[in-house]
C-alpha cells in the first residue's frame, strides 16, 4: 500500500519489519529520523523483542552492534558522514569478523569545512572496509534494500551498508509501499549465525593473525564478496516474486540498447539523469543510463557488458578523491579497460549542491558534441576559485578558503536546489 511518507520513515518501518534485535542510535544528520522512529517503535512495544540502545558515539554504535551480532542477535544501526569516519575502526572490524550487521548510511559530505548536506564522500571513504555497499535510487528502493541487505548479510556473514542520499531521500516525502510484514517474514528467515558466542560451545573470536595467514584471511573475504555478485541477482529475483516489484540487483540499465553515450551514476541522482536523458533522446541523441546498485562488490562483468556498445561513458559522481579524480570513474575505467570507450568523469553535487536537469543536459550536449573534458566539475564557479587563488598568492595569511568563498558570495547560506 502506497503511503506518502518521509524516506526515513519508510526505512525505519521496513527495518522494523526485518525484526532487528539490537538497534544502536547516535544522532547525526541526516539519519536521525530513522533511528528516532525505530526508537519510538521499540519504546511503544511495536517492535519487540528489540533492545534500542542510545550510545555515546558512533564508535560505540558500531561496537555495540559488533557485540550483539557476535552474540547471535540481528543488529542494525545508521549513521552518516563524520559518524561513519568516527566509527571507521569498528566498521573495518565488523567486516573482518564477518558479522552480518546492516547499517543505513544517509550519505553526507565530510568536513572540513563542515557540511551536513548530501554527497557520497562518506560511502567512498568506506569502500575498502569490506562491507557490501548498496545504493538506493528512490525511497522505495531504500526501504526494499534493507530487507535484501539483512538476507544478504546473514547468508554471507558480511556486513551490508545501505546508502541513501541524505536529505534528498531521507527527508523527501513520497509514495512508499512499506514491505508487508508477512512478506518480509517469508523472505527473511531468522538469523542463524555462522559463529556465535555461546557458553555451551565456547570459541575465541577475533584472534591475532600474522603474516602466515593474513593474506588468506583477506583473500577469503574477497571471495565472499565475489559470492555476493552471484547471490544478489538471485535475491533480487526472489524479492521480485515475493514483493511484486523490482528492487536491488547489481546494476540497472535505462535506454542503453542503442546508446552510444551512457551515463553511469549511483543513488538518487539517477532520476534526474534519466529525465535529462529523456530530453536528449527527444532531441535524437542516443543516450542511456546505467545505475549501479551494488557498488561493493563492484560488478565488473555486468558494467562491462552494459557499456560494451557505448562509444562514450560519462560517470557522474558525488565524490572525489582529491589529487586523483573520480572514485567511481576509476572503477568504471577498470571495468572497461579493454574497450575503446571515451570515459568522462563529472563530479557533481558535492556538499549538497543541486544537480539540475539543465546542467546535466548541457553536459550531455557537450559530450555528444565532443566538448566534454575528461574531468569536469559540474557548475564550478571559476571566478571564485580564481579569486581565492589570487588571494593565496598575494597574502601569506590568506585565511580559510571556505570562509573566504562564502564572503565572496556575500551569503552564509548554501545553495541547494
Amino acid at each position, binding site marked *: 500500500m502506497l503511503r506518502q511518507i518521509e524516506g526515513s520513515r519508510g526505512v525505519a518501518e521496513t527495518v522494523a519489519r526485518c525484526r532487528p534485535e539490537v538497534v544502536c542510535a547516535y544522532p547525526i544528520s541526516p539519519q536521525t529520523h530513522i533511528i528516532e522512529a525505530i526508537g519510538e517503535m521499540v519504546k511503544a512495544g511495536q517492535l519487540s523483542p528489540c533492545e534500542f540502545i542510545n*550510545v555515546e558515539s558512533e*564508535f*560505540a554504535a558500531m*561496537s*555495540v552492534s*559488533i*557485540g*550483539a551480532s557476535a552474540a547471535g542477535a540481528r543488529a542494525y544501526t545508521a549513521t552518516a558522514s563524520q559518524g561513519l569516519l568516527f566509527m571507521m575502526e569498528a566498521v573495518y572490524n565488523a567486516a573482518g569478523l564477518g558479522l552480518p550487521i546492516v547499517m543505513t548510511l544517509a550519505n553526507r559530505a565530510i568536513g572540513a569545512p563542515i557540511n551536513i548536506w548530501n554527497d557520497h564522500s562518506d560511502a567512498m571513504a568506506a569502500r575498502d572496509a569490506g562491507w557490501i555497499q548498496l545504493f538506493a535510487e528512490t525511497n522505495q528502493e531504500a526501504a526494499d534494500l534493507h530487507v535484501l541487505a539483512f538476507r544478504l548479510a546473514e547468508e554471507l556473514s558480511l556486513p551490508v551498508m545501505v546508502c541513501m542520499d541524505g536529505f534528498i531521500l531521507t527527508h523527501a516525502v513520497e509514495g512508499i509501499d512499506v514491505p508487508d510484514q508477512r512478506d518480509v517474514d517469508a523472505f527473511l528467515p531468522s538469523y542463524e549465525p555462522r559463529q556465535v558466542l555461546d557458553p555451551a560451545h565456547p570459541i575465541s573470536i*577475533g*584472534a591475532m593473525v600474522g603474516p602466515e595467514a593474513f593474506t588468506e584471511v583477506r583473500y577469503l573475504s574477497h571471495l565472499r564478496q565475489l559470492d555476493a555478485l552471484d547471490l544478489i541477482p538471485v535475491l533480487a529475483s526472489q524479492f521480485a516474486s515475493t514483493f511484486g516489484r523490482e528492487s536491488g540487483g547489481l546494476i540497472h540499465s535505462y535506454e542503453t540498447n542503442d546508446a552510444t553515450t551512457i551515463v553511469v551514476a549511483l543513488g538518487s541522482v539517477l532520476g534526474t539523469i534519466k529525465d535529462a536523458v529523456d530530453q536528449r533522446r527527444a532531441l535524437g541523441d542516443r543516450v542511456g543510463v546505467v545505475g549501479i546498485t551494488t557498488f561493493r562488490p563492484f560488478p565488473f562483468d555486468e558494467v562491462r557488458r552494459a557499456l560494451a556498445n557505448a562509444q562514450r561513458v560519462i560517470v557522474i559522481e558525488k565524490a572525489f578523491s582529491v589529487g586523483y579524480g573520480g572514485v567511481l570513474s576509476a572503477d568504471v575505467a577498470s571495468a572497461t579497460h579493454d574497450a575503446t570507450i571515451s570515459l568522462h568523469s563529472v563530479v557533481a553535487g558535492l556538499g549538497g549542491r543541486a544537480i539540475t536537469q539543465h546542467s546535466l543536459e548541457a553536459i550531455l550536449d557537450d559530450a555528444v558534441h565532443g566538448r566534454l573534458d575528461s574531468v569536469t566539475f559540474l557548475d564550478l564557479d571559476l571566478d571564485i576559485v580564481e579569486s581565492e587563488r589570487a588571494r593565496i598568492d598575494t597574502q601569506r595569511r590568506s585565511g580559510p578558503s571556505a570562509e573566504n568563498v562564502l564572503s565572496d558570495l556575500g551569503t552564509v547560506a548554501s545553495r541547494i536546489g
Partner: protein
Amino acid sequence: MIIMTRQPVHFYQVGSFAVGNRLLEVSDRTVQSDPQRFDSLDSGHRACQGCGEALGARYALDAAMRATGGQLIAVNATGCLEVFSTPYPETSWRIAWLHSLFGNAPAVATGVAAAMKVKGMNDVRVVAQAGDGGTVDIGFGCLSGMFERNDDVLFICYDNEAYMNTGVQRSGATPPAARTATTEAVGPEPGNVFGQGKDMPRLAMAHGISYVATATVADLHDLENKVEHAMQLHGARYLHILVPCPLGWGSASCDTIKVARLAQETGLFPVFEAENGVVTGVSKIRHRTSVESYLSIQKRFRHLFAGSGRPDIVARIQAMADQNIALYGLLAEDAPAEITREVSA
C-alpha cells in the same frame, strides 16, 4: 572506618591468605584451589614469565565462571592479554570470548549483553576486560557510556600501569616518577609526571553504578569474593585489579605477587569496594611498610635510589601513600579485624 564484612575469616593456619586450605570446608575454599577449577585461561599462553595479568585474568574469570555456573561470555580489549592469549592458531581461552578493538570492549560487551537480554538468555552474564590503557585512556569514552546506561556488564581492568604490549609506554594510570619508554628517567624530574593519574575506581563510582571494587593478585580470597559479589548484582559493575608486570616494572618474575602485596601494604594501592557510589569496605593493611620497600624492587623506580638517590621524590610518593591511608582508613589500629579465634574442625 568500614571493615569488609563479607569475609568471615577463621583461623585455619593459613586459612585467610593462602590459596587453599585442607582444613576449610570445600565450599569455603577459593575457586583457584579446586582441582577441577575451570582454567578459563589455559596453559600455552604466551605471557611473559611471572605475568600478573595472566594470573589476574584466570583468577577473575574462574571466579566469574563459578558464580555464573559457567554461563559467561567475555569481551576483551586489544592489549597484552589479548595478544598473548590468542595468536593464531592457538587460543588459551576456554570460555566464549570475543576480541574486537582496543577502545571498544565496554560497548561490545553492551552489545553482547543486549543480545542475551533480547534472546531471553538471562542466565548468561557478560564480562569485559581490558588493560589500563584500554580502560582509562582509549576505552574511557565507551566505558563511561556503558556505566551511564547501566548496562549489565562487569568490566574488569587489569591495571599494570602502562602500555606494556607496545613496549612500556606511559598511560593515564602510570604512577608518578615511573620510568616508561615515553617518560624516561632523565632530566630534573625523571620518569612520569606527578599527579594522581586517572583514578578510575573513583571515576566509576561517580557514575553511581551498583558496584566498584579494587583488588590485587596478592589477595585471592578478596578478589574472588569481589567477583562473586559483582556477579550477584546486575547493571554496570567495575573491578580494578592491580597486576604487576615484571617486564614493564622491572621486577623479578618471582616477585609478581610480592610487589602487588607491597602496593597494598604501603597504601599506594588502596583495596576497597563501593556500592552505589559509596565506599562500603576497605581491606586493612596488615603490616604497614614504607614505599621504599615497594619502589626499590622495581627497576622503573631505580633512578630514585641510584647514586645519592632522590629522597625528595620518594617522600612525595610516601605522602601519596599516607594520603590514601588517611582517605580510606587503611590502618587497623587495634587487633587485625579479620582475625577471630573461631575454630572449625
